[in-house]
């Protein structure tokens, strides 16, 4: 009896501490969402309040109008073009490369694998300047090519993740397929690809996140506001010197996080597994 109550008290304390901590961590996000429904005049009075005095839903409509005559319809469309093309490109190429590394013995494989692990740790910022000069030679500045094309050569993180997955598939399957007359490529498309769908999903979700959040590449490559993705547009839209409608700014900022959060809640399992097994950064 006493042991039971003791256990119960311990449990309640645990949840109390963890729950409070979680609420504090989430406060900034909830506060931002709340502020997106506030009147601009209310944003700075009682700034920390979560709920607005009166709910102003029209912030979202006003914010959507964007700036310089370009609405957020354009910015979201641009983002989706970049995100979808580069995600498809990176997933397919990464799967192809992963299969080559995981299943085919060839000379120099070890060397290329080491190179891949090194490029995985090499930050984009280190090659940014020469890449910019190179794309400038090609006349690709202010196009989406510098943002999309590099993803078609495989993303080391995804290659690694898919490789780990392919290794769990018994090699006997490949051999059986070969006896049945499959060549290397059709083993890849018919046997391996269908079996690594979970790894492809995880890669696709992370690709979506990284492209959606990508800020630095659009910042240096895109010049025409009509071509801006949401991330870059939001930066201009929210410049403290230019903003007058604070409610609308909060509305568009909150909205830009919505796709990330929705995808997170739908595909949580893949994300958690992806991070836990390969240490992908979120």
């Amino acid at each position: 009896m006493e042991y039971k109550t003791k256990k119960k008290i311990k449990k309640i304390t645990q949840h109390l501490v963890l729950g409070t901590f979680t609420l504090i961590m989430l406060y900034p996000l909830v506060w931002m969402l709340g502020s997106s429904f506030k009147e601009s005049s209310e944003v700075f009075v009682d700034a920390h309040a979560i709920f607005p005095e009166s709910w102003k839903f029209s912030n979202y409509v006003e914010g959507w109008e964007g700036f310089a005559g370009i609405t957020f319809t354009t910015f979201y469309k641009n983002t989706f073009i970049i995100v979808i093309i580069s995600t498809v490109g990176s997933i397919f190429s990464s799967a192809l490369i992963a299969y080559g590394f995981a299943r085919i013995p060839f000379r120099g494989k070890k060397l290329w694998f080491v190179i891949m692990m090194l490029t995985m740790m090499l930050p984009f910022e280190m090659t940014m300047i020469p890449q910019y000069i190179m794309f400038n030679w090609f006349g690709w500045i202010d196009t989406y090519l510098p943002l999309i094309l590099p993803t078609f050569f495989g993303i080391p993180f995804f290659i690694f993740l898919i490789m780990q997955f392919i290794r769990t598939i018994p090699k006997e399957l490949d051999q059986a397929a070969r006896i049945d007359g499959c060549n290397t490529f059709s083993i890849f498309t018919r046997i391996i690809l269908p079996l690594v769908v979970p790894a492809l999903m995880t890669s696709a979700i992370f690709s979506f996140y990284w492209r959606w959040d990508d800020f630095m590449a659009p910042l240096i490559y895109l010049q025409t506001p009509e071509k801006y993705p949401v991330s870059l547009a939001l930066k201009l839209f929210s410049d403290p010197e230019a903003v007058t409608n604070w409610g609308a700014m909060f509305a568009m900022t909150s909205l830009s996080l919505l796709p990330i959060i929705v995808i997170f809640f739908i595909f949580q399992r893949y994300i958690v597994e992806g991070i836990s097994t390969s240490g992908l950064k979120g």
Partner: protein
Amino acid sequence: MKQINDETSPLEKTLKSNQKGPKFNFKRTKKKKMESGYENGMGYLFISPFIIGTVALTLFPILYSLYLSFNEANLVGGNTWIGLGNYKEMFTSDPMFWKAMEVTFLYAGTAVPIRLVFALLVALALNKVVEMVGVYRTLLYLPSIVGGSIGVSIMWRQLFGNDGAFNGVLSSVGLPTHSWLGDPGTAIWTLVVLYGWQFGSSMLIFLAGLRNIPRTYYEASEVDGARPIQQFFKITVPMLTPVILFNTIMQVIQGFMAFTPSFVITNGGPMNSTLLYVLYMYKQAFQFFSMGYASALAWVMLLIIAIFTALIFKSSERWVHYDN
């Protein structure tokens, strides 16, 4: 390297190589037997996108950047070879370079440990709780999943602004408010807190590591009379060290490379107190168009990261424990 005996049949070889499981293991028997010309070709065909991409988008750029760093270069005109000029200028007559170094080391040196310690503590707490772990895990991971987004940086700027929520909370409980972003002494800390706040993905990796520690270790030590504290330092920590190593390396690189927060929240100010290295590099390259100087900056940072990674790896021989 242990070679598999030559007498074993091909089937046995495959079986043996299968038993090795998911590891980086490219041990082969006789090279020439295994790699037929066909397979060599196929292998290179499959990884060809990677090879093309690496040569064109990594190897060439990184070498070109090395060349540029010895030049006075801009986007339109030609390059003028100045030898070590850029490096000399950087180290001897550019106070901004030293400022950026100082800010970046302060930032990475505090933000990375804060995030890792936070992630570890929360993972340990979650590992103890039986009920609703999924809910806590999901909610605590949320800051991390949105954290890289520009929207969060914008929100942070408002949160710590003069009329922002943080000052609102302070004044509502009777504490003095402060110009967090306007004061060169505090601005960098708002960025550090933002980095620490996104501890979620490290937490998940730690949590997975904790789950992998066999329960029997704890049970056995309990029988031997170990107290929880002893269990923590003798079982939990040593078993987690490989995960800690991985997390540390990734986070150190990420910490040195931080850009968006300082660009959006403070743009390096006030008085360059938040001038992170990559922001300085960006300004040199894309605002002053000193491509040569910016490339030299990139190479110095690359060397610093390489040295740090090597040091962490080297030291890991002493503190990382591999179970098998």
